[in-house]
């Protein structure tokens, strides 16, 4: 990006002598460069900040009678108390469990795979392998998820294979449970982790890894001290890209989870659509947002503290007076 902009800038400088800039009819050039960001921030204000602001506002209101959806003439925190009452709280717990477990499973699958794909797989196969990750992603999300209904059904394909192999006796009973939701989200969100990780590993140039080995580090040491730290941005992007939509996902939970595998996204949607209680739905949405922000921050803190010993060992300050 920067180099492109610099190139354009340099070209502009070369093609025009300085005096041309002050010539009449060139004033439009003096518009602040921030104008380039206008579409982005206009979009953000109109479709992100404003709706979120409205949701927060509604969450302090209440549902006025049978036919109203929301009212804000009396403000209170009652909807929050309601959102955190035992019935709904269980759903939040369930969501958090699926979100964290799902992200960890996806991470465990993606890191070795993306590493292999970016650094070890033969160059000529790389395109095909990437396509194999991507193509299911192009299919409609709902259709893919419904596909799992067929596979996971008690008399479905997966169940029959397990029974034939003698791993389970009797039909598989995981449909409409948390496990089914977990399988569904891992499948649905895997590419969102693999792609940024692939890019991140791909950018760790061969010469850096070779330099590490040259200086006496074995494979593990090189991975731990060079490859992984340099892939960190991709790791963070991947985790956020998976964890945030996964926490708010309601299609997978609706299709595969049923009553037992309920998730917060589904619960919020119910309040808005079925119960017509926008105030409660908004409070639930705010709780969900805060949960996501809180856990993401916590995860970042844990990762930072967890790698602290490694950084402390690496840290080297020379006490030189010069």
């Amino acid at each position, binding site marked *: 990006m920067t180099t492109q902009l610099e190139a354009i800038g340099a070209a502009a400088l070369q093609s025009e002598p300085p005096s041309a800039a002050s010539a009449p009819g060139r004033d439009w050039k003096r518009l602040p460069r921030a104008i380039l960001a206008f579409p982005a921030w206009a979009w953000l204000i109109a479709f992100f900040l404003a709706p979120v602001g409205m949701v927060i506002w509604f969450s302090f209101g209440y549902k006025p009678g049978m036919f109203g959806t929301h009212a804000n003439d009396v403000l209170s925190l009652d909807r929050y108390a309601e959102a955190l009452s035992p019935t709904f709280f269980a759903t939040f717990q369930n969501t958090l469990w699926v979100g964290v477990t799902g992200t960890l499973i996806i991470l465990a699958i993606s890191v070795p795979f993306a590493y292999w794909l970016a650094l070890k797989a033969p160059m000529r196969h790389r395109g095909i392998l990437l396509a194999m990750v991507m193509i299911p992603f192009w299919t409609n999300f709902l259709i893919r998820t419904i596909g799992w209904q067929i596979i996971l059904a008690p008399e479905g394909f997966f169940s029959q294979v397990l029974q034939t192999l003698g791993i389970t006796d009797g039909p598989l009973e995981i449909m409409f449970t948390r496990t089914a939701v977990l399988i569904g989200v891992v499948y649905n969100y895997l590419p969102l982790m693999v792609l940024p990780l692939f890019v991140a590993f791909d950018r760790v*140039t061969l010469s850096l890894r*070779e330099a590490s*080995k040259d*200086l006496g*580090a074995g494979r593990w040491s090189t991975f731990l001290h060079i490859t992984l730290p340099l892939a960190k941005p991709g790791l963070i992007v991947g985790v956020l890209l998976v964890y945030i939509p996964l926490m708010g996902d309601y299609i997978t939970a609706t299709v595969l989870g049923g009553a037992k595998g309920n998730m917060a996204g589904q619960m919020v949607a119910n309040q808005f659509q079925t119960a017509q209680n926008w105030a409660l739905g908004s409070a639930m949405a705010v709780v969900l947002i805060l949960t996501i922000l809180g856990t993401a921050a916590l995860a970042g803190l844990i990762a930072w503290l967890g790698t602290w010993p490694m950084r402390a060992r*690496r840290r*080297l300050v*020379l006490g*030189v007076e*010069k």
Partner: protein
Amino acid sequence: MSATIPVVPVSGEPTRNKGAQTEETGTVVLESVTKRYGTATAVDSISLRVEAGEFLSLLGPSGCGKTTTLRMLAGFEQPDAGSIRISGQNVIGVPPHRRNVNTVFQAYALFPHMSIAENVAYGLRQKRVGKQEIREKVTEALDMVQMVSFADRRPTQLSGGQQQRIALARALINRPAVLLLDEPLGALDRQLREEMQLELKLLQSRLGITFIFVTHDQGEALSMSDRIAIMRDGRIEQLANADTIYDSPANAYVAGFVGQQNFLSGRIGVDPHVMDTEFGQLRATTVTGELIVGSDAQAAVRPEAVTVSAEEPASVTTPNVVPGELIGVSHLGETLQFLVQIGHEHTLLARLPRPAAPRLAVGDRVWCSWSDESVNFFPAKQAAAAKAKIAKDAVDPAASTRAISIKE
């Protein structure tokens, strides 16, 4: 220095103990080393002995196999055939991190997420050296390259030349028996490159570590090396010191590749030291290659060996005299370069130090002369192949930097 290499019949069996007594730390021996990529042979049965403490350059155009050779020494590639011994130890199958060899990479390969001090300390940390000792050794290493005050910076905050020094300090911190340098000065501008050449040479003689230096820049190779191996198509064309390579090239390729040459074609007479050309007889004291009486040949003479004068020199004192017309004069700083048309389609390049150069104008009739000691005769076929190859190399940008360095 150049002890004779015992010619060991090459087989797959390890030669761990063979010659271990005679090969001291820092000696590198390659025997019939071959590396293929698919059908292409990158390195074709190379045998080479580098003495402990020697500064050896592998010089050649891109694709000549010099980098592949270096990578096999570092352990990043395994040869398909042949044996490699470092300090008397067979290293075939030994991974890079278990070799007492370190590399300075072409693009420096500094770790961007570590400070300069942490980069330099990396090798010691892998050896689990204590922190106090690391601190002392890193300070010492940074002091060696005059970069102590940069210890806390990041690699991206450093200029190319500074990064180069850090890469050097990092590679030397473990005191390897052999230091491998893969075109380390390629990314630097000319002035810095010349400074670094001097520093590298000084450092090498001070440390006494074997340096194996890969470059396509002949100026670099000539200025620093104890010996130079000129490589082409995976083979070594000549292995000798700079003087020998420059004055007595083993073949026409080497003659044309290092420095500039004027090639003149003709036919060998009864005396192989005399060649008949359309410009008269040429004489040489030394003759290389198989030259048969009556065979077509090429004479090679360097521009700086050629004298240009307005009067015909006495043929008694100068055995080689060719008349011609001056068609160009260019100023190269310390020298003047003359381009002389001889015959119908030949030109001769001459370079004379400026104070001694005659004042001549384009269009003047001139005489070019040179001594018989500065001429080499080569079989015509060899010379033609060499010229074609050099013309091809001149197209690639890497080779053009060489053309510039010639003019210095």
